[in-house]
């Protein structure tokens, strides 16, 4: 099944994992210490994030370290700001229009 990025970030635990591994690469065990859930649950979240290409896995000895795919996050950031711009530019035009209507009202 193809995962989408909305699914990846819909879960609060996954959002917390992203914030943690953005700081530095971590093993599933180290991550699990931050949550009340089992290591298995953390692994499942990591798998979903990996399917969305939001995390990178590096094997070091017997451990796998997970880190954030910074480039992927930046891509998403640009994507969001594009749409935020449309919405906010509408409201800014509305601000201008309202200022004009207020001005008319005080004059009449």
């Amino acid at each position, binding site marked *: 099944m193809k995962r989408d990025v909305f699914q990846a970030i819909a879960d609060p635990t996954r959002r917390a994992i992203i914030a943690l591994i953005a700081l530095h690469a971590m093993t599933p065990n180290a991550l699990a210490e931050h949550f009340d859930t089992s290591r298995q649950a953390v692994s499942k979240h990591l798998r979903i994030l990996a399917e969305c290409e939001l995390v990178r896995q590096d094997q070091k000895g017997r451990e796998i370290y997970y880190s954030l795919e910074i480039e992927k996050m930046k891509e998403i950031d640009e994507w969001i700001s594009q*749409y935020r711009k449309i919405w906010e530019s509408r409201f800014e035009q509305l601000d201008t229009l309202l200022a004009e209507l207020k001005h008319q009202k005080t004059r009449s």
Partner: protein
Amino acid sequence: MKPAEVSTPSDQEVLIKRSFDAPADLVWRAYTDPELMRRWLTAMPGWSMPVCEMTTDVGGKYRWRWRDDANGVEFGFTGEMLEVAPHSKIVHTQVYDPGTMGGSMGDGASIITVTFNETDGQTHVTTLIKFASKADRDAAVSTGMTDGMEMSYKQLDEVLEAVKPRTANV
């Protein structure tokens, strides 16, 4: 004014909040008078709004259509007014009109609820978009330019906000 706040109360809903430095009666006019609405409800730079028809009677229909002036591509929304409480609330349906742009936003109509609350001369406006189903929300997101779209990115925004100070140093 502070930029719009966006959240996703459920996987079928998106909520937008924004305050305006004007009393509710003026904001109401800007939301219900087609000529005024056309002046701010733009799609993107370079797009015009050739059709902006609406009535604010319950059961009344509306039709909005935008055009990319560079290539003539059009798309829009149509719907019906379900509830109208002057200066305080509008509820209407919303159906995507693919025009010549194409795309789909699912089969069901979204329900849009806009509320206006005035305090100290400022009006707080909330817009709740409820998609007919989660599948429709996904369809709206993949189509591109819709109100629903920007909203769906909110959770992502939260993540990016948490991550930003760190990624900046990488």
